[in-house]
Structures are given as C-alpha cells and as structure tokens.
C-alpha cells in the first residue's frame, strides 16, 4: 500500500475513532434520561454521516452501510420527532453500532481488512426503525407518504440559451445544521459567476463576515441573476452545493434592477428539491415533499424545526457543554524526540556560555551575559512546556469506565450508578495507558462481587441502586485512584479460609497471624477467586492478578480496604509521572546523585554526639528521641570523599512506606526537575539506584532508590 494510502487510513481511523468516542460519551451522558435532545440527535446524525462518507471513500462497505442505516434512524427521529422512541433500545443500538465500528477499526489498525458482516445489525436497526415508524402510525400521526411522481428525479436541459438575457430570482436554503454556511454560499456564487452575466446576492459580505451564516440559515441565501440560461439549466447549476432546497423563479428586468428591497415574487415559483441530487435517502426526500406541500415561505423550514411544541419534547435538558479546548494529536515519539532535543540544547547552551574562549583577561562581557540570561530563561521555560506535554487528564479513561458500568450492570441486572470525582487529574501518558485495564477489572469486580442483588440491598436497608465511586486525586507526587462501592464488603474469615484452601497461605498459619488488610491482599494473588460461581465477567481469579501486574509495571501499589456489610474500596497509588520527577541534587565526592523530593522528610545538620555506632559498624542517628539507620553513600558506593566527620556533611531523613532511614552525603546542590532515564540494560541492577538523569550541564547524575538503598 502506498504511503499516501497509509496516511489516509491513519487519518480515517483517527478521525472516526474520535467521532465514536464523542458519540459514546454523549450517549452515556444521556442514557439515564428519557430522551436525547435535538442537539444530540443532530450530533449523532453528523457523526454517522461523516463515518458513512469516509468509509465510502475507503471502500469499507459494511461500515458504510451500517452507518447509513443508523443515520436513517436519526434522520427520521430528527425530522419526524416521534414521541415514543424507546430510549434504552436506541442507546443499545447506538452502542451495538459503535462496538461494531470499533472492532472493525481495530481490525483495520492491525493491517487487516474489515471483514465483519453488518447485515444482521442492519436488519436489527431496520426493525427498530419500522417499529418507531409504526408506533406513530398507530397513533394517527401522519407518516410521510412516498410520492413518486412529485419527486424530481430528472432534469431536462432546456432549449439552448435564449438570445435575450433572462432574469432570475433565487432563494437557497441550507440545512440548519450546516456549518460555515457562508462558505457554502460563497462557493455557489463563485461557480455561478462564470455562467451569468450579472449577479447580486444578499447577504453580501458572506466571505468576510461569519455572522452572515446565521442570516443565511434563518432567511435563506438570495440571489438575483441575469443570464443567458434557462431555468432548468440554472437549477442544475444550483445543485450540488449542499443546498437543502432552492427556489428559483424568473423575474422581470425591473425586479432585477430593484434589488432585494422589494419582496420577491413567490407566486408561480418553480420549487426544486435538491435532496435527491445530493444523494440523500428517501426518507429525507419524503420529508421535504411534506414541507413543500405546506405553504412555502422563506425561512419556513427553520421555523418549523423550532416550533415550540416539538422543542418541548426533544430539547428537554440542554446542559451546557464542557468548554471545548482545541487539541492536535502528535506522535509520542516526536514528543520524546523533542525532549531529547531540548536536553541537547541545554547542553549546547552551557557549552557556549562556559566556553573557555570567553576567559580572556579584560574582556567586557556585560552584554553577553545579559543575552545569555535571556537564553537560559527561554530554554528552561521550553523544557517545562515540553515536559508538561506528556501530561494528560484522566477524563477519557474515566469515561470509558462509564461504559463498563453500563454494560456490566445491565448484563447482571443490577442497577448501579457510577460517580466520578476528580477526573481532570493529570498524569503522564504512559501511566494512563497502564491503568485503563486495571481500572476496568476493579470496576467489574465491584459490580460483580461487591454490589449485592437488589433484594439483598433492600433487606439490608440500603438504597436499591448501587453506588460505585471512582475518584482520582494528586497527593504527594502520587496519583491516587480509588474505586469504592457501597456493596457487601469482604468477609476476612471467608477470604482466609479460601486462601488456605487454595494454598496461598501456609497451612500452619492461622487467621490471627494476619491483619485484615493483609487478608484482603490475598485477592490479588494469582488463582484466587472467592466467587463460588465463575461468571462471564469475573470469578476466574485472573482479574486482580492483571491489576497487580499492570500496576507493578508503573511502580504503583494497591491498597484494599473493606468493611463487611458496608462496602470495599481499592486504591491505586501510582507515581505521577515516569518521566519527570522533582529531585534534590546532592554530591558525594565528585559524584552527583538525585533523590526524589517527595521521599525526603528533612535535612539535618548533625553533631557526632547524636550518632550511635554499633560495634559492627552500623550507625544510628538520634532525631528527637527516635533512632534511624544511617547509610553513608560514600561508604556504600566506595566513593572517595573529603568529608569524613559527620558534622561536615548533611543527613537526609527519608521515608518510604513508613520506613525511615538517614542518608549521609557531602553536600546539597539544590532542587530541580529532572527527567528520569533508565540505566542501560547492559549494566546490571545496582541496589539503591533506580535510574539516571542528565543534568543541565550535560553530566549524568544517578537517581537514588530509597526503597532498596538500605539493602
């Protein structure tokens, strides 16, 4: 496949993927209400229309047909505004279709061809469509009849251009969801220009004034034309510019010259419906036939769709949409590259600024230093921006969970509400990729095992509707994500018995050897499942195992807490970012190290008298009555250090998971944001080191790992 084709495919997948996401999001937001509002339906229609169009171009027939079918449904709903569309059924259909698309997109992404057959789904939707249509009929509502003879399917080109110029008055109406209608109008004018002798149109400033779009939508786009063409020819010219309908009529020379101040003649007008020209489906045409039968006046269409009564049923709750931020998608590799590049720039900068050539006696460098300071400021700002580019809000991940709750709870027949808190919390992109699966498992677990059946809940005096809370927050350089439910909670005794049966705990241990929290942790062991029956969703004992694996990959931990009868909560604690940490730079001998700021409790200047030394060399520091183990970096790593006496250096009191140790170093150099890089695989793992980083001057510092340093 050519490169061009590849990039087209990428674009196709990306754009339609986004559309699907948007579609699902809107659907999920409205799933609990009893109808979609007009804006939603319009949005759905647009989404399906776009997918249909682009799939057609890519020749993915099944996708195109399916999109077309669903588009029909939305078109029908939008135009006929049936009162009793079974809302949940419609939601189901939307999901079924979007799932189909997603699966196909995945197929395509993996280099395959879309092979799935959409005909069953199409039939299904057909049934649904005729169902909602029938319901209307049964309620004596007028179902638009197909009127073949009126549908203009052919145009005859009239006698070749009359000798005398003719004058025409044209009104064009656009669908009221057309975007940038002024541009459409301009395109129309542009193409007419070549064929006509003289032309005037209103509104006039269509290309410069965007507000004219509203005017055109509201009142139509009006053109006065003097040309040597017949009415039929004109009508053909007018077609194909996404015009909903045009209204062209011959007028007199006087009327032409009078311009737009005089009301245009409507009587005897020859109305042409352009719906069929644009390849729209038959329902659409029918719909327009209907409209035409009414007394057509300019703007009728718009007014009709906004008629008060209809609005009341469809536009029930017009919630304010979240303010749209504009985004572009960039390949992560490019961002990584950018990050490497900025690192190089910083190095190059220091090479220039500290160039030995500048060390000439008596050289006046005042201006040089001024400009240098400026440059330094910009590069460091740039560094900050590039680093922040990797941060993304959790919003999308959380939204996906909404879908999981919807699907799972319906499958299990449980009524469950998902509450989301703090979904805008930002974390590094890599982390987002790793937590989606764990979260999904945790939520499924909560629904399946946590939330009880309705009867049970009622008996326990709880709200029959279960509640799952998904919460994210930042705390001390970690992102904390918790999934909690108000379900039955876990029974430690039962868990313990099960763990023993499955051989997770040694036989000789009794339940009293473990705290409740330790017992809850058993559920993360591979092969542990407390559910008596293996359900479709969970119970195989693999879920929590996956959660742990994914978590460990990003250095996170899982905490489980539960109260029997009241519910459980699982909390993920993950480092905020894998790439950037705030660190404290320190020096031992001529070697520099970085310690993560968050693990530092305090810096202490100590005197020899505060240190206790064991005969075997172990040292302990007394800090306000507490003794902490001391690790001297120079001794641990055999670095020649000029600092021997304990009062010349500085102690860093660190804490990792409630374990505190003191690290003794020569001196502190300051705090800074650092980019974490792994130590190359070639070098075997060294205890107490978790990575390395490049400093501003291009040198490399090693990052201390508090968790293993005492080992």
């Amino acid at each position, binding site marked *: 496949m050519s490169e061009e084709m590849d990039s087209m495919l990428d674009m196709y997948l990306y754009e339609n993927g986004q559309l699907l996401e948007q579609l699902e999001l809107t659907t999920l937001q409205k799933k609990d209400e009893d109808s979609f509002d007009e804006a939603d339906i319009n949005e759905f229609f647009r989404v399906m229309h776009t997918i249909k169009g682009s799939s057609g171009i890519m020749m993915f027939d099944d996708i195109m047909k399916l999109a077309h079918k669903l588009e029909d449904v939305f078109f029908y709903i939008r135009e006929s505004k049936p009162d009793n569309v079974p809302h949940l059924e419609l939601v189901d259909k939307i999901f079924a279709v979007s799932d189909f698309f997603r699966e196909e997109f995945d197929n395509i992404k993996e280099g395959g061809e879309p092979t799935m057959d959409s005909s069953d789904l199409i039939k299904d939707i057909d049934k649904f469509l005729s169902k909602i249509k029938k319901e209307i009929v049964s309620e004596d509502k007028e179902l638009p009849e197909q009127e073949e003879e009126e549908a203009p399917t052919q145009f005859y080109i009239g006698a070749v251009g009359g000798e005398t110029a003719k004058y025409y008055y044209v009104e064009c109406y656009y669908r009221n969801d057309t975007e940038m209608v002024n541009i459409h109008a301009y395109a129309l004018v542009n193409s007419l220009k070549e064929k006509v002798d003289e032309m005037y149109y209103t509104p006039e400033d269509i290309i410069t004034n965007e507000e004219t779009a509203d005017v055109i939508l509201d009142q139509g786009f009006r053109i006065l034309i003097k040309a040597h063409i017949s009415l039929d020819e004109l009508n053909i010219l007018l077609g194909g510019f996404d015009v909903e309908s045009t209204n062209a009529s011959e007028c007199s020379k006087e009327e032409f010259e009078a311009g737009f101040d005089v009301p245009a003649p409507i009587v005897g007008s020859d109305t042409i419906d352009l719906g069929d020209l644009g390849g729209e489906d038959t329902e659409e045409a029918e719909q327009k036939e209907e409209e035409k039968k009414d007394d057509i006046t300019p703007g009728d269409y718009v007014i009709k769709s906004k008629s008060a009564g209809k609005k009341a049923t469809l536009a029930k709750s017009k919630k304010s949409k979240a303010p749209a931020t504009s985004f572009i998608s960039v390949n992560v590799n490019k961002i990584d590259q950018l*990050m*490497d*590049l900025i*690192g*190089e720039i910083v*190095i190059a900068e220091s090479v220039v600024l500290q160039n030995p050539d500048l060390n000439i006696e008596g050289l006046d460098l005042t201006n040089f230093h001024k400009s240098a300071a400026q440059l330094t400021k910009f590069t460091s700002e740039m560094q900050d921006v590039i680093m922040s580019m990797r941060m993304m809000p959790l919003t999308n991940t959380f939204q996906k969970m909404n879908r999981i709750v919807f699907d799972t709870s319906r499958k299990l027949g449980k009524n469950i509400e998902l509450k989301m808190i703090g979904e805008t919390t930002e974390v590094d992109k890599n982390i987002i990729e790793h937590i989606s699966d764990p979260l999904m498992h945790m939520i499924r677990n909560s629904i399946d095992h946590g939330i009880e059946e309705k009867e049970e809940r009622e008996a326990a005096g709880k709200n029959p509707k279960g509640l799952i809370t998904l919460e994210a927050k930042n705390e001390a350089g970690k992102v904390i994500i918790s999934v909690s439910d108000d379900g039955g909670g876990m029974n430690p005794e039962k868990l313990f018995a099960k763990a023993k049966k499955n051989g997770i705990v040694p036989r000789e241990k009794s339940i009293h050897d473990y705290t409740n929290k330790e017992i809850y942790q058993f559920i993360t062991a591979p092969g542990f499942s407390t559910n008596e029956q293996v359900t479709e969703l969970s119970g195989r004992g693999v879920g929590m195992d996956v959660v742990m694996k994914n978590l460990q990959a990003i250095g996170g931990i899982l905490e489980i807490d539960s109260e029997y009868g009241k519910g459980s909560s699982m909390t993920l604690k993950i480092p905020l970012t894998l790439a950037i940490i705030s660190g404290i730079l320190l020096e031992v001998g001529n*070697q*520099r190290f970085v310690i993560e700021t968050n693990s530092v409790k305090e810096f202490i200047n100590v005197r020899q008298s505060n240190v206790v030394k064991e005969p075997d060399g172990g040292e302990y520091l007394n800090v306000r009555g507490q003794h902490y183990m001391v690790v001297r970096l120079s001794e*641990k*790593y*055999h*670095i020649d250090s000029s600092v021997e006496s304990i009062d010349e250096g500085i102690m860093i009191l660190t804490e990792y998971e409630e374990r505190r140790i003191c690290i003794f170093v020569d001196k502190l150099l300051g705090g800074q944001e650092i980019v974490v*890089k*792994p*130590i*190359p*695989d*070639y*070098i*075997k*793992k*060294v*205890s107490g*080191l978790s990575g*390395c980083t*490049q400093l501003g001057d*291009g*040198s*490399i*510092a*090693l990052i201390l790992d508090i968790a293993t340093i005492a080992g």
Partner: protein
Amino acid sequence: MAEEKDVVIAADDIELEGSAIEDAKQYMTFKSGSEYYGIELKYVNEIMGIQPITAIPEVEDYIRGLINLRGKIVPVIDVRIRFKQEPFEYNDRTCIIIVNVKNTVIGLIVETIDDVVTIKDKDIETPPSLTTTKAKDKYVYGFGKVGDEVKLLLNPEKLIRDEDMSAIDAAYEDL
C-alpha cells in the same frame, strides 16, 4: 552519526585496494597497550573524544560508567581494563568508539584510533592460542595482516558480553 561514518569511509584507502573486492572487510583499528586491534567497521557508529564519565558503583571494574551521547545515556567500557591490562590515564588522544552490537550501544575507551583498513579474509589467520584459556585471547578471533603489521581482530559481541551474560544468567537463577 551516519555522516561521521561516511567521512571515515571516504578517508580510507578503498580506492587503493579497490581491486580486492572479493571477501574483504573493513576494520577500524585502534591501539591499546602495545598492540593494534581491529573491529569490523559495520559495528562502529561513531568516534568521539573522551567525555566526562559518570561512574556507577558496584559494577565490573572495566565498566567505567555512563556518558551522555546527545541525550542518550550510553555505558562505556575501558578496553585495556577489559583485557586485564594496566589502566591508563585518559588524555586528549583518548577516544571513545561507539559501537552498536545487536542493538546494544556501548562506548569503547581506547588509547588512540589508528586507521580504517581493508583486510581480505584470506589474510586473516586464526590465532593458535584460541584453544588455550588465556583470558584475553577469547575476544580475538583472528590476526589480520596488513602489510607487515598484524592487527588483532576483535569479536565485539564477546568483548561486551561474555562474562556479563553469565552474570545476568546468574542473576536470573537467583530469582
């Protein structure tokens, strides 16, 4: 990277020995101790002057540490120490040859770069000592004759791996 390599190739004496296309390879030669060594050119990414090196504690003595290669962290090993020879002082003539062996990028610290030469396969002699267990010989797979001189041809894979591999394997067994 590629550019520097190109320069090196352009400067060598392909033209002079151009007739000997059959079964000949190009080697980058360098001096370490009193001997000249050769490493096949296809492994060489680039050559750079000595850089500030960040030492890593608790690793083999010949791994001198890490250097910053335009934002990439690259480990460097001292070839002389690797050959169990006396360490030497780094100076302006000291070079780092950046090699890429099966996607592992590593810097080799050598005393001086010598030349790029073309050695015909038939001019390579298998060292008689290959069967003995003398440590330094195992990285050398052949003696390449260039005129009167003899270059010890190195197997870069063994140079950077070998012992390390066994260390890694041992580490896995512990797990």
